[in-house]
């Protein structure tokens, strides 16, 4: 909440990011001159809701899809940067004993698949199914957060579980990715999380947003310079052990501010991609209508 | 209209309107009760006894007619008309003393004076040792004595009692009858007492009204000597007297016939 001098930032557990060093070291608090409260969420949609209610001002690493869903429904959010890219950390794991691979993926029709609904994982699942020629409307999608999805997959309640974060490691004990991150990227299914702020917060406290982005940028740079130095801190903040954090971080990319300004990202790529995501969600019957243009919700001025 | 009656019941009728019918609970009832009189009311179930009492107490307004107490028309309940109910009308969250002092406290009477009154009444009803007990710890008979004392604490001119001893066992009841009689003699209050017991009605009424139902009305009125007698000789002697037994007989058969006529044999 924004009680005068507190800023609340939403983040995910089991989602180790470079800036968590700054979270733990309270670099954010110092640079922004306020108390920064970090609240863990189970999915990006709840982040949107909390931001709509005014309790959260910044979401670090919100999924792209919840953002699109939110702004399409009139939620006053702004995308101000890219948090992480992570092709390999958001996957659909299929049970080994199901006997299903990319070649016979259409057998998924009529089976139960666990996924958080209405976020990046869901979007990627839809795109993956589309790519593999599976009729998504015939797959029995069960709304589950990653941790629950992992349990359901391990127990065999679902044949495939889609999740992000540490849950994937647990899932891999009983299965393998239907498509790897690399395979997905190859066919244009990109995966990244974003930094969003509420419109009010951006217009009333641009200096705080700026400071937040600056600290993040520095933390990313510091991490890239010496990944191992910060590993213990990051793992602790993410609620993971060091091995798990290391293997996940290995697949994370933290694009620099300069990169983000480029045409691939906030220079135009993101805006286009937003529209693409919206179209997919509308087509799959999950969203009523998309907007014609999402560029007003993207603001690269804080990079 | 100049009148000497403490309670003047002037041609009252009471009709309860039910969704599909009307009940004539009282039909054109008139009755005068003199100051300092004790009157008992007897009658089969549903003949309007409670209705009559509630009208005098001011809880109900009659469909027709009016009741005057001490010359003033009754418009609502008032502290000059005390009530004693069958049971369950004590405030169980209060102690004996607090129950008795309830009236004076509500009326804002002087505290010291109230304390004296309570002390005196506790003595009269024989509950001095129980002053600070919560009332729910008392036996039924004791509770009714508290109810009597609570009513007397406000020093009402008229006391209306609706089967005050109805829930007590036979022995306790006889004792309580003596207490009521003593109070009547000592305080000179005007008392109207409803009862189901013929014996009690005979014993406690200078006058006795027998009511009949459908429509509720006064069927017969008796003037009786027993209440006054009982002030002089032991209650048991009064009740064993041949006059008493004969009166009891007469009234019993009267009510018996009344019931038979109304309900057949299915009471």
């Amino acid at each position, binding site marked *: 909440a924004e009680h005068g001098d507190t800023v609340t930032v939403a983040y995910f557990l089991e989602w180790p990011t470079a800036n968590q060093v700054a979270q733990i070291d309270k670099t954010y608090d110092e640079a922004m001159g306020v108390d920064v409260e970090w609240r863990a969420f189970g999915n990006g949609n709840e982040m949107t809701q909390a931001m709509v209610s005014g309790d959260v001002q910044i979401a670090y690493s919100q999924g792209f899809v919840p953002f699109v869903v939110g702004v399409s429904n009139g939620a006053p959010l702004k995308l101000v940067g890219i948090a992480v890219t992570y092709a390999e950390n958001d996957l659909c794991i299929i049970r080994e004993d199901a006997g299903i691979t990319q070649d016979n993926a259409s057998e998924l029709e009529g089976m139960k698949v666990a996924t958080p609904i*209405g976020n990046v994982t869901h979007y990627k699942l839809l795109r993956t199914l589309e790519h593999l020629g599976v009729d998504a409307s015939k797959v029995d999608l069960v709304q589950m957060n990653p941790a629950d999805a992992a349990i359901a997959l391990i127990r065999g309640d679902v044949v495939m579980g889609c999740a992000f974060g540490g849950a994937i490691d647990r899932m891999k004990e009983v299965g393998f990715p239907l498509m790897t991150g690399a395979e997905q990227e190859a066919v244009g299914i990109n995966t990244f999380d974003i930094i969003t702020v509420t419109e009010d917060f951006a217009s009333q406290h641009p200096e705080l947003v700026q400071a937040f982005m600056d600290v993040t940028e520095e933390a990313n740079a510091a991490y890239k310079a010496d990944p191992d130095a910060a590993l213990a801190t990051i793992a602790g903040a993410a609620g993971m052990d060091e091995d798990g954090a290391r293997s996940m971080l290995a697949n994370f990319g933290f694009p620099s501010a300069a990169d983000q300004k480029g045409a691939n990202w906030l220079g135009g790529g993101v805006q286009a991609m937003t529209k693409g995501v919206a179209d997919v969600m509308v087509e799959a019957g999950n969203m009523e209508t998309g907007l014609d243009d999402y560029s007003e919700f993207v603001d690269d001025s804080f990079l | 209209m100049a009148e000497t009656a403490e309670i003047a019941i002037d041609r009252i009728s009471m009709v*309860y309107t039910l969704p599909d019918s009307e009940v004539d609970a009282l039909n054109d009832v008139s009755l005068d009760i003199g100051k300092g009189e004790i009157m008992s009311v007897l009658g089969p179930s549903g003949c309007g006894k409670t209705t009559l009492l509630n009208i005098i107490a001011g809880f109900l307004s009659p469909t*027709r007619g009016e009741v005057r107490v001490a010359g003033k028309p009754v418009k609502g309940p008032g502290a000059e008309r005390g009530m004693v109910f069958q049971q369950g009308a004590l405030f169980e969250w209060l102690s004996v003393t607090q129950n008795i002092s309830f009236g004076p406290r509500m009326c804002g009477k002087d505290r010291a004076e109230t304390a004296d009154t309570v002390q005196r009444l506790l003595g009269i009803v024989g509950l001095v040792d129980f002053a600070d007990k919560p009332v729910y710890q008392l036996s039924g008979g004791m509770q009714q004595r508290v109810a009597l004392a609570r009513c007397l604490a406000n020093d009402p001119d008229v006391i209306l009692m609706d089967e005050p001893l109805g829930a007590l066992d036979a022995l306790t009841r006889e004792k309580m009858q003596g207490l009521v009689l003593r109070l009547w003699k000592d305080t000179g209050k005007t008392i109207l007492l409803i009862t189901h017991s013929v014996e009690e009605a005979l014993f406690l009424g200078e006058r006795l009204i027998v009511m009949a139902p459908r429509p509720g009305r006064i069927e017969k009125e008796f003037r009786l000597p027993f209440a006054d007698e009982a002030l002089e000789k032991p209650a048991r002697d009064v009740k064993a007297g041949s006059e008493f037994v004969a009166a009891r007989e007469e009234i019993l058969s009267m009510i018996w016939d009344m019931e038979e006529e109304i309900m057949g044999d299915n009471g």
Partner: protein
Amino acid sequence: MSRQKPSGLAIWLGLSDNSFTRQKTVKFGDAAAVNSGRFYSLLTLAVLIVAWVVASAFELIEPFYWPSISGTWERLVKILGEGFRNTALHDHVGISVYRVLSGVFYGALVGIPLGFAMGLSSIGRGLFDPVVEFMRPIPPLALIPLIILWFGIDEFAKIFLLFLASLFIMTIAARSGVSSVRITKVHAAYSLGASKLQILRHVILPNALPEIFTGLRTSMGVCWGTVVAAELVAADKGLGSMIMIAKNFLQTDTVVIGIILIGIIGYIIELIMRRLEQWLIPWRGKG
């Protein structure tokens, strides 16, 4: 002093005293003198509806906080026509109701004999008391994590959760029903030559029925609350999951429709139970 009779409408609306209250001089504190106040109920409803219409017409509230009346209506028509996420609305309702009924059914199936054993025998009471006393204060919701671990997310897991929610309520209701039997009734039956089994069947069971029924009503209410939670965690169908998924898409209108449906169905369940009770246990409270 004869009085004019007020109009039937005024009485129905609660604006005039009815035949019962009319003759009372003191009404304050007299529960029987409080009428339905229907006029004011209608007033409340009118104010709420007008407020919604006005707010919708002038777009005073962002639709994701509270939907417009027309939007909600359209959404309702759409859901009724197309269903929500490929499932017809009545299927969402049906599956939730089915889960609740199953949970209550199994809860009663196990809980009633358990309660009888505990109320009738020292051994039964001793054996089950520790478990019942310990499990009772644990809200079924707190068990969701364990139940997911044990039974996964299937129908069985949900119904098991609801079963647990109703089990202890039913056990305690049956136990207190058994314990509340008047000893004179049991003695009367013995003196009439009844055997223990006959007493169980003909005296103790009917005597416990009212409390068992109260237990069923309570169970229904609790399970109806719990099914929403059970469907939050993992569900493709059911009113609870409908609300949760709609929430993810900020479809506040669907959320509101879901909540209203849950309210209405909860109310209907309560009404049916009351009717059933009047019909099955007419002697209730008349012993």
